[in-house]
């Protein structure tokens, strides 16, 4: 275990937050916080400084894209990944320009998928090797 990622999950479904936390934790990610609204997410991200924040695009009545934009511009060194139940193909127009480093459909969420997106971004930024997780 070279790197243990810290992660904040933002989603308005308690059930999803619980199952995603359980899965990511088992796969070696430290889920340091969970938020169910934009306001909570900003506060937690400030306090916890997670390596990566997962943001649901449809955050109840709030706009997850707008939240991603704020998180990414407030802490550009940290990473935001958008998540949704829908296919990327339905949302490409929204994802591009959100400041997020990538998108994951919720059912393929996992530690490796998150690490791959971060790795790809670091590679394109500085030519680094992607991190490994157990």
């Amino acid at each position, binding site marked *: 275990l070279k790197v243990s990622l810290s992660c904040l999950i933002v989603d308005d479904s308690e059930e999803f937050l619980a199952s995603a936390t359980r*899965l990511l934790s*088992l796969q070696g990610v430290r889920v340091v916080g969970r938020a169910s609204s934009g306001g909570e997410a900003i506060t937690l991200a400030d306090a916890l400084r997670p390596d990566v924040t997962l943001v649901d695009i449809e955050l109840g009545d709030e706009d997850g894209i707008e939240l991603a934009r704020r998180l990414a511009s407030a802490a550009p060194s940290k990473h935001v990944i958008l998540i949704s139940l829908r*296919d990327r193909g339905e949302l490409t127009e*929204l994802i591009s320009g959100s400041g997020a480093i990538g998108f994951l459909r919720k059912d393929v969420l996992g530690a490796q998928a998150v690490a791959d997106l971060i790795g790809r971004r670091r590679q394109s930024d500085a030519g680094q090797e992607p991190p490994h997780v157990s």
Partner: protein
Amino acid sequence: MSAEPAQNRNLLREQEALRRVATLVAQGTGPERLFDAVADEVSVVLGVGAVSLVGYDSDRQMFSPIADTHGRRSAMPPGAWWPLGVSPLGRLIVETGRSARIDDWSRLEGPVAERHRAEGYGPAVGAPILVDGAIWGYIGVYGEGGEAFPPDCESRLGAFTQLMALAIANVQARDQLRSLAESQGALRRVATLVAQGDEPQTVFTAVAVEAARILGVGAVSLISYDPETELFTKIFGTHGERAAVPDGGSWGLDQCPEGALILRTGGPVRIDDWTRIPGPVAARHREQGFGQCVAAPIVLDGTHWGHIAAFGEAGQNLPPRCEAQLADFTHLMASALSNARTRDELRGLAERQGAALRRVATLVAQQASAPVIFDAVAGEASRALGVARVDVGRCDSGGSVTLLGSTGRSDVQHDHTFSRTGECVAAKVMQSGTAARMDDWATLAAADAKVAAEEGFRSAVGAPITVDGTLWGVIVVLSDEFLHRDTETRLTDFTHLVASSISNVHARNSLIASRARIVTASDETRRRIERNLHDGVQQRLVSVALSVRAARAYPLPREVQSGLDEIAAALDDVMEEIRIFSRGLHPALLSRAGIGPSVRELARRSPVPVMLDVAAVPRLPEPVETAVYYVVSEALANAAKHSRATEVSVTVGCDGPRAGAGVVRATVADDGVGGATPDRGSGLIGLVDRVEALGGRFTLDSPAGRGTTISIELPLGDRRGGSDIA
């Protein structure tokens, strides 16, 4: 899944059924064929055993089954008239004026109830069909066995009866217009005969024959009356060998019941029952198999000249409009005969009035817009009556008049509103409800009168436009010469036509509004279902899927591992199915981001390369955005499926929106094989329906071998097409 998605599915199916029926109404489908479609849809949507369409007579004492799906189980075959008392459901609807249901037929009496029980029908629900505010009939549904209908059955059936009512109102408006045009045509033929100097007998023959044809009755007589001798003389009849009195024969008051009645009442009369009328004429009438008689006076230059009598065949039920048709006809004929004195003038009338009314009737039939129709009415009235100025205006409750059409004015625009409280012709018409005139302006103090005098007008005549029994507007003609005293009569002819066009446009406007409501309701339902799936079932399934994958991280026996693998794979399949279903329901991106991003997304997914030109389109009303999206989506799908195109161009642009105005345009053009038609299962007909429901325009240009171009234009704001004259 829970009960909710099943409910959603039913709602969706019902919205689609309503949309199919609304499309038929919009296509001008007649009530009988429409009923077949309604019966099919209602049977499926409400899951009932049989459906019937029933009409009432005008005073709702009788009813007649018009069509049904009972087949051999029918209690009463369509076509016959029955007393209201025998139909428990029909009577309840008339008594309450609203939907009715009968859950328990076991203690009801009468032939209908007995038959109902014998055929094993269960509960029944009926919803009234309201046409022009009155109960025209109802649609009844009959369940199999004993299970009661759900409580919302009445309101769901009501949605279908509303569409049925629209179709009936449409047909009635068309019928009224057609019969008016026919009457006018008959007048023209009669007047032409007189103008040609034909023998009076030829003219009278033509009058009787035309009247018999227009009314569709067994025979028509033309009878004159001499007040000095108190004798009726039969000028001409179409009875042939069935005549009681030969042409030229005379008889007294006691032998001519309809003539005597007319002399007493001064208006049109109807005799239903000849059995108790004494005398040889009535006896001969009965023998020859004539039934009802409708007659109307002919008044020539203010004096009673005689009457026209129409005789139905025995058992023929002459419709209530018969009196009015005959009265219109005699009225027109009287003015034709009156004008016969001056042959030149008459020839002018025959040519001008007949042709003028036809031109206006054509515009109405072509569904021209309100300003076009009313300007044409004013122009034709001006030419036919030889007057310098004609105004057509609409009355409102505050006593003012809004100008809808005019000729001979240079000063005022359409929609200008005048206060009409002073002494003027329009005010007189509005107060009295009848035609009025004004010949001397000099003595009047009102501003309007001064203006008229200054403009050099000598004489003005106005006539009311009466729609559905209420004063709708006025038509006023002004002349610098004294207007002949038959002007009131001739002007009244024009107001009949105007009234008919208004009633027609009214029917069309309510149809457009109803289609828009249905399309919007259907989209709203789909959007809600998509939302419910997303926030409910899909969210839960993905959580379960992640939990299953979490469970697989633990060391487990191999059998358990492979079981979990199977569960995970099955969950993936289920989620994929729902995602596909969900995408077909409503485009999520459209609600979130509007037309621009959604159309770009469609272009990205298109298998045929797309040249995209999408202007910065602001957020628009949801029905408009949805229509643009579906048009582009369907056009791109067609291009990929059928056209063998190598490139498609998509252009979307928007003028406005300003308050209550603006238009959005979209064009999809491919370089494929062309030859697309809206009727070949291409999904285009659904688009046409959707666009027209929003008052927009859909054009398809697809010449064989030269590509396909689909263009739409949708108005923004409140004025979504249709004329606003009603």
